């Protein structure tokens, strides 16, 4: 049933996109480049053995996006971001996060841009195999590292606020996972420094 609803929504979206397409839509106004740091699952990941929860994580992120005029002070803002791979112990696991994003931007002031949008967040984990001997009760045991390539895909609901200084900008971008399901709902965010290159 849900799949049918989603399929209907997809067809509606594609049709609407086709009707919405105008000359101005394909004439992008600017291209922009992001540099930032991403924090996954704010306040929901334990980061020490005393119960401390992670509020900030340094995970370098790069991205690129386009600015399309929409109407009045609104913009279409598709973008792609890549959270650079974290190197796990001796590179046994390589974790990449890719974000395929689409925002609507609203500029209430010349220096302020508010964003509302959605992402597909693609968490890719590449295991290189291997094994390790670790403590297990009063003894040690052999445990095994992952050896395959697997991905998780999530739709997120996103909000962002951006301050613009000429061709530069600073942005706080949030991503809400599982917004329709309370148990799994989590918030991630990225702090971006952006350079806009006008077309």
């Amino acid at each position, binding site marked *: 049933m849900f799949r049918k609803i989603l399929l209907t929504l997809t067809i509606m979206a594609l049709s*609407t996109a086709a009707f919405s397409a105008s000359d101005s839509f394909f004439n992008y106004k600017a291209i922009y480049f992001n540099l930032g740091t991403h924090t996954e699952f704010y306040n929901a990941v334990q980061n020490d*053995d005393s119960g401390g929860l992670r509020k900030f994580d340094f995970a370098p992120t790069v991205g690129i996006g386009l600015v399309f005029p929409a109407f009045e002070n609104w913009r279409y803002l598709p973008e792609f971001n890549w959270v650079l791979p974290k190197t*796990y112990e001796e590179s046994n696991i390589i974790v990449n996060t890719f974000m395929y994003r689409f925002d609507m931007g609203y500029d209430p002031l010349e220096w302020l841009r508010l964003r509302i949008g959605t992402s597909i967040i693609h968490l890719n*984990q590449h295991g290189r195999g291997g094994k390790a001997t670790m403590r297990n009760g009063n003894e040690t045991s052999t445990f095994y590292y992952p050896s395959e390539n697997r991905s*998780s895909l999530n739709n997120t609901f996103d909000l962002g606020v951006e301050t613009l200084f000429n061709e530069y900008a600073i942005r706080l971008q949030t991503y809400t996972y599982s917004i329709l399901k309370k148990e799994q*709902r989590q918030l991630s965010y990225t702090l971006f420094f952006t350079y806009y290159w006008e077309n």
Partner: protein
Amino acid sequence: MIKFIILFLTLTSLAEAYTFNNNFESSFKDHNVKVYVDELTTCANVGMTIYELNDLIGPAIDKYWNRVPTSNLRLKSGGFRSATTNINDGRLCAPTDDDCITTAGATVIAPVEEIIIACNTEGLNFGGDNVLAVTIPNNFSGKKISGAVIVINSTLTSIFSTLSKADKIGVISHEIGHAIGLGHTDDSAALMYYKTVNQRKALGADDMRGVSYLYPMQIDGFGLLGGCGTITNARGTPLEKFPFWQMGASLAVMILLSELLKLLKRS
């Protein structure tokens, strides 16, 4: 400026890594798994009734493993289940551990379906009073787990009864981690660290990565479709596939939002 950017991008952090119980990365075939208490288990030695034991399972699941949006694993407390042979005092052996099975003889704990928790008085299962519990997936279908047994150390000298309720929940959650296929990690912030820590409030990054690897979320739809299945190949490995559903859902939301804004503007 360029030097700063290069320096920034090369500052990737080093972390510990999750592991698995075995080298074939086994996981449950179905990502909806129930956790039961054996109905005839007795936990008197550790000062608990089976109802108190059952009450620990909900928090152990909901506070930890069910909170990972990048994983489609959904654990549920199943209540009580009919008795498993020898679960109170038998030896818990892996199906491939011939030495254990031979030594145990008729006392070996029978294979189970899904996850069963019980209290157990056989000291050989634990190897020490300070070992709080042991878990072994003891039923496989090919390389997939069909069932796992968690036994709580209920020997007369067990220290399980001295733990706080929060620590008992943490121990059971750690054991459920083994039951679903995870091994230990060297990161003391992770639930799958080999021992309990001062305070446990959430999963660590390794735990979240590990459960997302074994049970990756593939059909999400903003949380609405998180219970849908995982598509696997013949070996049971989740397939890498183009995210049509995610693309459709995201695109639909954005276009509808865009059209709504246009309508509001016109009105």
